[in-house]
């Protein structure tokens, strides 16, 4: 059962040496942190690694959390930097893989859907499929705005951008997502959305 204490109260307890309080914080935020990690690294195994590293880094620097922003905003900024470091390292390890090429591969794999099964698949499935085809930054902004319920200012803080830049990026990301969705579903898109 998850604790009903606020994030701040759980942080204070953690800093006082109660590790169970931090376990409660992890339980509370793990689903969204994992989803956000998935937006960057695409596979569940890598996302688990990024999410786990993010929580460990957050634990290490918990005493540095000032409380000026929401804990979730602070945590998402750690997820973002951890994912970026992971991708950079991965890019160094697999030098031959080009980003664009990777996304084209993902896209072509995703567009091979079975038309007959369209009605059996939920709107959420197609949306998730379309979001996977977006660039990591676009996918992360959409996820933080809709699933993370973060304001433009908070997303800006987490990603190190101005709120206005986030607003423009969100607008473009939504347009791209709509295009992907329409391309994947063709005629079914209008019925589903």
């Amino acid at each position, binding site marked *: 059962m998850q604790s009903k204490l606020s994030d701040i109260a759980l942080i204070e307890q953690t800093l006082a*040496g*109660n*590790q*169970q309080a*931090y*376990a409660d914080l*992890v*339980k509370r935020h*793990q*689903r*969204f942190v*994992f*989803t956000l990690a*998935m937006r960057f690294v695409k596979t*569940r195994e890598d*996302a*688990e690694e990024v*999410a*786990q590293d993010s*929580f*460990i880094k957050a*634990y290490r620097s918990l005493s540095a959390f000032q409380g000026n922003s929401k804990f979730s905003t602070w945590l998402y900024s750690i997820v973002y930097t951890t994912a970026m470091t992971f991708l950079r390292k991965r890019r160094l390890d697999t030098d031959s893989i080009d980003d664009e090429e990777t996304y084209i591969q993902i896209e072509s794999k995703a567009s091979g859907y079975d038309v007959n099964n369209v009605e059996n698949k939920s*709107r*959420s499935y197609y*949306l*998730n499929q379309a*979001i996977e085809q977006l660039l990591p930054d676009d996918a992360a902004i*959409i*996820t933080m705005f*809709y*699933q993370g319920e973060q304001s*433009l200012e908070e997303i800006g803080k987490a990603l190190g951008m101005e709120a206005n830049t986030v*607003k423009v990026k969100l*607008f473009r990301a*939504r*347009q791209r*997502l*709509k295009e992907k969705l329409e391309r994947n579903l063709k005629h079914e898109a209008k019925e*589903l*959305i």
Partner: protein
Amino acid sequence: MNNMEEILWNYIDGTCTPDEHKAISDQIAKDEAYRLKYKELLNLNKAFMAMEIDEPPMAFTYNVMEAIRTENAQQPLKAAINNKIIMGIAAFFVLTIVSVLVYALAHVSFAGGSHSTPVASNLKVPDLKSFLSKPVIQVFFFFDVVLGLYLFDTYLRRKKVQKEIQ
């Protein structure tokens, strides 16, 4: 078209000023193209909001806490030991040595005789047997037992916290 979408998204997100909000409301009411686009974007917005988030593996929290525990356990002994304990032990020994030195110097008779007399014969060595009396030994053992109980209690508390986390 893009401009219309941008305006409508601002309206849906609530990021426009009250004046802009009113102007867009009027535009939607009187312009069919605006109304259709608004309806389309509103549906899309609802779909985005209803998107499900991924579920991490069942053991995710356990794995994170296990990694943190392992990391803490791998800390060097120097970092794991409380500095206050080290300082306390150091203070105890420094105080003991200083006390012994002061006591010894206070009992040395410097008004000896001629240079030919050996220095050792003028020294009054304190009788240590008088310090090892029964009450002193009892206090020493009592202190040891209290210290032992305190350390045992700390160990049990740590075990309890670890059990709760698992």
